[in-house]
């Protein structure tokens, strides 16, 4: 009897440790979507962020805790465009949650709602880790964030209809602030136009596109393929011939190649946060773009 009570107590305790009941529970694959969900849902949502800002978004493991949180999620927000293809399907298959399967209202693939860049015309793995749906690093253009925000707001209202007015108001407020921020960033970054960048990976294409910068070349010879020593030596020559204002890398990538290249070409290296939490300055979505622009401005002078 005592043992039974103990067991029952344990079970109750375990169930009580589940994510807060009242709030809509949101599973965000990546920090940028966690931050957006929090902006739009406020205290009506409890957001679980499935990965850290220092994780390579292509290579996240289907950890046990992700299965557990996927199980109870009401809304899953991911990037889509095959970015999470190595781990999200496992969660979908094992967590036993039919409300968040692709195609249901509980699932948002952000890349479905924006115009993707670099959709390959030739699909061949010999080209490296390319995505049939185009470049998936869509959040680095804040105008894409605005589009996704509208979708998320809409979906929150649909899934939690009794708080629909709250989400609408919250969405309006975010839209106003975000619109103002975009205007500010565009004005502030005017001097960055035409800036010539050499990113490590093709993960800042949307940023470059938005700010009218130029991607001279990448350090990776092909997406997802790290450069060899020989290739780096070739790059030194290429960069000097073509001219570049900055070598950039996201915080989750290996710094060694970018640092070596910067030393040998005397082109400054800029570490970019990539996502919310990537640097101390990138404490939320607003901070993310503030910090990216500030870091680029520093070397533009």
């Amino acid at each position, binding site marked *: 009897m005592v043992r039974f009570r103990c067991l029952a107590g344990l079970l109750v305790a375990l169930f009580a440790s589940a994510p807060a009941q009242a709030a809509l529970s949101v599973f965000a694959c990546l920090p940028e979507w966690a931050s957006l969900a929090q902006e739009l849902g406020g205290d009506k949502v409890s957001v679980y962020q499935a990965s850290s800002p220092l994780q390579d978004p292509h290579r996240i493991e289907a950890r046990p805790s992700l299965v*557990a949180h996927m*199980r109870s999620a009401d809304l899953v927000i991911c990037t889509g465009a095959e970015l999470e293809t190595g781990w999200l399907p496992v969660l979908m298959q094992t967590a036993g949650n039919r409300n968040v399967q692709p195609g249901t209202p509980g699932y948002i693939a952000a890349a479905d709602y924006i115009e993707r860049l670099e959709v390959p015309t030739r699909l061949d793995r010999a080209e490296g880790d390319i995505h049939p749906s185009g470049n998936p690093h869509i959040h680095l253009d804040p105008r894409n964030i605005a589009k996704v925000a509208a979708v998320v707001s809409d979906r929150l*209202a649909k899934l939690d209809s009794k708080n629909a007015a709250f989400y609408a108001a919250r969405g309006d407020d975010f839209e106003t602030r975000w619109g103002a921020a975009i205007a500010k960033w565009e004005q502030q970054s005017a001097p960055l136009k035409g800036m010539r960048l050499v990113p490590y990976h093709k993960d800042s294409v949307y940023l470059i596109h938005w700010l009218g910068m130029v991607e001279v070349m990448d350090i990776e010879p092909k997406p997802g393929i790290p450069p060899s020593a020989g290739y780096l030596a070739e790059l030194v020559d290429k960069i000097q011939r073509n001219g570049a204002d900055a070598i950039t890398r996201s915080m989750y990538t290996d710094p060694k190649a970018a640092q070596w290249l910067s030393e040998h070409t005397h082109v400054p290296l800029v570490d970019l946060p990539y996502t919310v939490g990537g640097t101390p300055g990138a404490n939320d979505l607003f901070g993310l773009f503030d910090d990216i622009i500030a870091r680029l401005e520093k070397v533009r002078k």
Partner: protein
Amino acid sequence: MHARVFVAGLTVAATACAPLANAATDSEIQQLRDELTALRSDYAARIGALETRLAAVQTTVEQSAPVEPAPFVQPPLATASSGSSGNEFNPAASLILTGTYGQQSEDPANYQIGGFIPTNGDVGPPGRSFQLGESELTLAANIDPYFSGYFVGAFEGDNGTSVEEAFVSHVGLVPGATIKFGRFLSDFGYLNEIHAHAWDFVDAPLALQAFFGGQLKQDGLQARWVAPTSLLIEVGVEFGLGDQFPGTDRDKNDFNSMMAFAHLGGDVGFSHSYLLGATLYRSKATDRTYQDLDQFGAPVTDAFTGDTDMWGLDFVWKWAPDGNSVERNFKLQAEYFHRNENGSLTFDQDGPGDATGNYNSDQSGWYAQAVYQFMPRWRFGARYDRLDSGSTDIGLVRSGLLPSTAFPILADHDPRRTTTMVDFSPSEFSRLRVQYAWDQARFTDTDDELSLQYIMSLGAHGAHKF
């Protein structure tokens, strides 16, 4: 009677309350609709404006773009293809190509795991010289809104084919539940469920080889349930035909193998994750035959009939700094297996010396392995295997009818093996491996085994479990 009253009451209540509820929600819905429409048109206007600005920016970029600009390929607009050929619904297909080059100091033909009843399965290192491994073809797709299907066919190097897995799954019958039926790799322990191409070593742990003859597959049904907790708590059961070692096809209704498992898993920060598991398994065998030598060295066929009860524990711990496994990561994995077999053992079945007596054995085995990725793409790993032939009680020997030398393969032995490996993965889709093992599975002589292996993956990007 009570039920009828209850239903009637419910109907009355429902009819009484429905209009009220509808009235309330209708006006709310209308209000919401209006808000959403306003919101939408607002967004449409904003997005329109953004797009105009975007176009303007693009032209300036194009005009000012100097040498070697990165090409921006504009995404094609959503294509609504009118002349559909039907291939759009083809399942995601992928193909695994594997092969080895091996050198072994002992003859692979006489490989045996001493002290354990042979499984007639997949044991020992992959042969000498160049060997084509399994080519695995995987097809997977949703069937309809209710089911999805998964198929793995294996083409063996010796030109045989087999159905590795072919199952249908259903997600969310009740929240947290997944059901699978067909043929599937059983969830016994941690590694059994993982396809060979995703293993960290060329071959399976000795314990899997000795107890299952490789990997345990079930033709049957699996149901699993994930608890609504933030720690992963998962329980599951399997029922199957149980025709694979340690069971045999018994030509009976009902199911011959049963299994129950539980998993507990979680994180410590973003850097550490762990998974613990426990499994119970039971199956029955009738005339499960194997080849041995009698006390004079002549080949005989012996057979076991009875019950097999197994339990296992498994543990996995993974570490990656800030969760970023691309640079460096570490994985520690260990499993323990225990098996009790109780029934009868027949000596020289259908032969001149045919005799049957009791058989009872308690045997166990474990392995522990660690794999460290010390730089991007390069990993180093070590594994230690140990089996304990335990206590075996053979009635025919105890009664003095036969000497213990009539069952040479069941003599006391603790097989051991130490394995080291280094592998290099040029990309996510290719892996090259060197492995060296000191294998003491045989009663005498250590087998020095060198293996070079390639594992290549074509087609759809596979998703791997933890």
